[in-house]
């Protein structure tokens, strides 16, 4: 009851929203209002209990802590904010993120970071299928493993997987960079293993620094990228289409 009273007092000023008594709509509106009038920079979301669309469309440098599990599209289209999910996240966490940081302390469901154009997504557990699908510039670090079809049609950005990758990694890949420490069940069409040169060690080292990952050695990772054989249609490649 204490939190309820706290929330009822002045949620936009103390930055505490209790989703057991307040709605996701009220929370998101308050976060969006910060674009026009900044009343609070540090936010806490209590009792999320897997609700969908928490903290979507934020466009301000805020710190938002979600104290529990989040449903679909948490932190979708984030700009600038630093959002942490202290639990698991549902499908499409940080989808189409533009900038900022999203950290999931648990696991993430499928399509984590889908189509995201920028920012940093850290998943401390495992990620489901299609992690980084059509990524367009986001950097993603998964401390566990990723499911099948991850980085499908990845266009730009980095996907670093500290565990294993499922089937068809990097299928139809464009220019996203993929690093995997563990095993890769299979590579998708036009994705190949590439030489790990010093610039790639440096790229991964910097990414881990940004992500606060201190227990990984970039030298233990393998690099995967596009063979660029499917960039323009050739009938000789018909079997790959």
């Amino acid at each position: 009851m204490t939190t309820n009273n706290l929330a009822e007092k002045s949620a936009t000023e103390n930055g505490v929203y209790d989703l057991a008594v307040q709605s996701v709509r009220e929370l998101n509106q308050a976060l969006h209002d910060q674009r026009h009038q900044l009343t609070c920079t540090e936010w806490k979301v209590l009792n999320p209990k897997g609700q969908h669309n928490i903290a979507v469309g934020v466009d301000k440098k805020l710190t938002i802590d979600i104290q529990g599990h989040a449903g679909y599209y948490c932190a979708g289209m984030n700009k600038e904010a630093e959002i942490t999910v202290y639990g698991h996240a549902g499908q499409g966490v940080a989808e189409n993120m533009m900038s900022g940081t999203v950290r999931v302390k648990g696991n993430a469901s499928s399509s984590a970071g889908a189509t995201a154009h920028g920012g940093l997504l850290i998943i401390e557990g495992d990620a489901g299928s299609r992690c980084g699908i059509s990524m367009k510039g986001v950097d993603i670090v998964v401390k566990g493993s990723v499911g099948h079809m991850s980085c499908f049609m990845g266009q730009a950005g980095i996907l670093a997987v500290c565990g294993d990758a499922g089937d068809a990694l990097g299928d139809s890949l464009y220019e996203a960079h993929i690093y995997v420490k563990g095993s890769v069940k299979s590579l998708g069409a036009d994705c190949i293993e590439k030489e790990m040169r010093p610039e790639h060690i440096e790229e991964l080292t910097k990414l881990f620094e940004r992500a606060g990952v201190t227990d990984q050695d970039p030298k233990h990772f393998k690099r995967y990228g596009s063979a660029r054989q499917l960039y323009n249609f050739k009938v000789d490649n018909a079997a790959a289409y």
Partner: protein
Amino acid sequence: MSEKTKYMTEPRESATFDRHTLAEIRRAADTGIYDIRGAGAKRKLPHFDDLLFLGASMSRYPLEGYREKCNTSVTLGTRFAKKPIHLDIPVTIAGMSFGALSAYAKEALGRGASAVGTSTTTGDGGMTSEERGQSTKLVYQYLPSRYGMNPDDLRKADAIEVVLGQGAKPGGGGMLLGQKITDRVAKMRTLPMGVDQRSACRHPDWTGPDDLEIKIKELREITDWQVPIYIKVGATRTYYDVKLAVKAGADVIVVDGMQGGTAATQDVFIEHVGIPTLAAIPQAVQALQEMGMHRKVQLIVSGGIRNGADVAKCMALGADAVAIGTAAMVALGDNDPKWEEEYQKLGSTAGSYDDWHEGRDPAGISTQDPELMKRFDPVEGGRRLANYLRVLTLEAQTLARACGKNDLRNLEPEDLVALTVESAAMARVPLAGTQWIPGANNW
């Protein structure tokens, strides 16, 4: 005449292996690749020409042309959006991408649509400043590729159209061949210059109608429930698709028949997937009526709309508005006979040119070639489009008044009859001179 030739008949062409079919077999054998082209289905299909209006006479009371009002305005997105879109005419411009079209062509579409108080729509590739600047009402397409997709543009939009498919290729993704991926197009789509862009056919972060409901709520949350959200489907299982779209929370449903155009896809896709626009409308309206949502969730119909009669017939069958794409391009000047010599050089002819994906459009519309683009004046193009849209509206009003209707949306199926059994069955209106609707009442 020799005795030998005296009894010979004319050489007989095969209806099965006609000239086009034979040429296509030879082309396939030569190249090893299927034919890719733009536009919609070219085969003959049951269409709006197969319907006629029953004008007023003894049993109905006509309205005076030019003197008595016939409303053409429509408001879209009244279900959930705080700011529905009000259109002065019920003819909108369908989604066509910057990339498929030049920036000037997109600007002209905005100019033309704005001049007559209607909306235009972005496409696969994001929103350009030219387009936003010249469009008073702009619908932002939310596509599987999410090229150029960002929340800033989303908030600038007057409506959001979640695209599940289009009539030319239901179940297929986008395609923009490398020759049109110029520096600007590449940057907007985060692609290397010159690569073939093959967009995914389904969205990356949801897989079914239950997910879509959550996705739509996300879009509403991001835009603070301000703008309408459309769902666009290619016409196939339209009855079920419309019901699911309503359930998913659409404000507006766009149904695109197989005559609807595309910038580029396989010819086999265009000609063999989907159903005619005529067949889709009654399915959509039935679904809406059964859910008690007809006129509450507005219906936009597209695919082969060419004149005011087509507009009026769509509305009589229950649409709230229509969208045009191919016809708008023609109004801008695409396929104009003045470029005949150049169309011939490309192996085509004015009126048949559909290799829009190659980027060599002599009219300078479906191209990114700087020299060809210079041929197209966006101000003049916008004026031509506005003229055309006015004519569509005047023609539709003429027909509505003749049927005694003071609002285009008062037209009804009862005002129509069909010329063929097929069109009667599809449109669910009686064969002219009879009371027979094939399929109705177990007939």
